[in-house]
């Protein structure tokens, strides 16, 4: 059986898996990013992880045909260079080349949240949907937009950064330097910093406010780009659950009043494996073996 090596480079952890062309995860490993290490030290963790996953291929009768990577942004196209906001050790780090050197595979990469959008369009909550946004609300906030049946790229492959829409003018300073970005107000790290406790212990009022602010940003994007469906994943959103989604939907309903606008915000469907399935979608697409958005 053919599979791709799928790799997820997050701000706090790295994960890798073998994923077949149906999106089935065959085996999966992950490791916490060791923030004591420098840039090369961090990549050693990644290399060990990839080695461990690839070593399982023979016993599982899997032939690895390529590699897809999703990484936190900002990035340059195809992850030639990555500078994750919340992983400061890597600034302009040549991720794609390093993974290719380590594995000897064809490596294709994309922004993790764009990869997620591909994954949701492939086998998740947006199969056959030509216009949608998928987003992640966890430590940080990001997204990917599919419009007119295509994943939006942007000038340097960074389209989808919904975390940097301004939702509270003059609000908290964001990691990016601006004030009042969604990420500065509603991300897991923002919630921890402003409430003094982790998002898992957040008061109902915090959950409601987070939902409202996410809904406000999504409303602007829905109005701007003319689509209906938004899928939200990530530990904060999914951990908050129903009250979060109800608050977000209420804010959307209040702010999306243009003719024919029927926006819906609901949980992403790929669950904990989503980043790896998205990375696999990037890999399979680059191999020309499938079009994740073909529906």
């Amino acid at each position: 059986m053919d599979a791709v090596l799928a790799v997820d480079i997050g701000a706090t952890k790295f994960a890798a898996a073998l994923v077949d062309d149906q999106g089935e995860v065959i085996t999966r490993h992950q490791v916490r990013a060791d923030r004591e290490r420098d840039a090369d030290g961090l990549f050693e963790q990644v290399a060990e992880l990839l080695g461990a996953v690839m070593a399982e291929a023979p016993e599982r009768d899997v032939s690895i045909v390529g590699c897809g990577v999703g990484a936190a942004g900002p990035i340059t196209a195809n992850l030639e260079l990555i500078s994750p906001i919340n992983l400061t050790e890597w600034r302009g780090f040549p991720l794609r080349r390093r993974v290719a050197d380590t594995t000897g595979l064809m490596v294709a990469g994309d922004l993790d949240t764009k990869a997620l959008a591909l994954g949701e369009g492939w086998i998740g909550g947006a199969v056959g949907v030509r216009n949608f946004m998928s987003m992640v609300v966890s430590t940080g906030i990001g997204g990917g937009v599919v419009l007119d049946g295509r994943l939006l790229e942007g000038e340097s492959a960074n389209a989808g950064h919904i975390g940097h829409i301004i939702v509270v003018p003059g609000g908290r300073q964001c990691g990016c330097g601006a004030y009042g970005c969604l990420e500065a107000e509603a991300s897991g790290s923002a919630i921890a910093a402003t409430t003094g406790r982790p998002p898992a212990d957040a008061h109902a009022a915090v959950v409601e406010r987070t939902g409202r602010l996410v809904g406000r940003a999504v409303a602007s994007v829905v109005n701007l780009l003319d689509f209906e469906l938004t899928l939200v994943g990530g530990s904060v959103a999914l951990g908050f659950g129903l009250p979060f989604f109800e608050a977000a939907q209420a804010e959307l309903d209040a702010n999306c009043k243009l003719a024919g606008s029927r926006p819906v915000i609901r949980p992403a469907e790929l669950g904990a494996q989503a980043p790896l399935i998205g990375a696999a979608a990037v890999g399979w697409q680059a191999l020309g073996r499938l079009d994740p958005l073909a529906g």
Partner: protein
Amino acid sequence: MDLALAIELEGSRIALGVVNRAGKVLETEFAEPDDSSARGFDLLAPAVQRLRERATRHAGEIVVAGVSVGGGDDLESDGGDDASAARVRERLADVVGVAVHADSAGRAFALSEGWVGAAKGVDYFAALKLDDAVSGGIVLDGRMLDGGLGRAGRLGHVIVVPDGRRCGCGARGCLQAEVSIAAIESSTGRPLTEPSYDVMRHVGRLVGRAAASVANLLDLRLIVCGGRVAREYSSTMYLAAQEELDASCRLSFSQGARIVSARTPEPSGLVGAAAVGWRGLAKER
């Protein structure tokens, strides 16, 4: 030579023109029908016929019609039946005798700026038109974004003042609710042409805020601005907008985003309408 018939519907005013493939307006006609509710489509027939005849002077033939429909992006919600782009298209096809493609004035503006204006040759930009309505269009990855109902690019409905002024669309604090001509006049109690310095800066800041959100979201660094408000408030507004952009576009890919004024030659509305026609023709084929 293939030519486009361009029709611009803006309020009760109708402008018509003949535009070539290079974006040059060769002939024009203007009509201001008394009965604006009917948009005077029947009155168009003679004007179209005159333009058709004059097109022969340029050794050309009209092969497509493009219509730019003013009144904002929320056409069906507050523009009445006749303002729906689809309806305009149907009714005009009978009159002009060639395929008709219609789009909002904001999207037509974006096409014209990408064609012969300030974003000529640029594959990533947003265009923002500040008039009675605040509308726009977005070109990304070299294509104008359409979206589900073909209305993508509505910068006028990005929320810039949470819980702000009530917008014509029903929401609050949309850019249009804050900086359209009507919004400025009603909140200041003065005509558009008599602004204070602070008002011009305020409008600029809000425009910059919406532009920054769009630049950060979509990974683009050029925002082209036009319309009467932009013309009246000019450099004072642009400066304030640019300051807001500089403060809010801090990501590696959005740093250096610029807001510039439109450069499509007049009559720019007809150039935009023609661009809608040419785009529609290309899509048909």
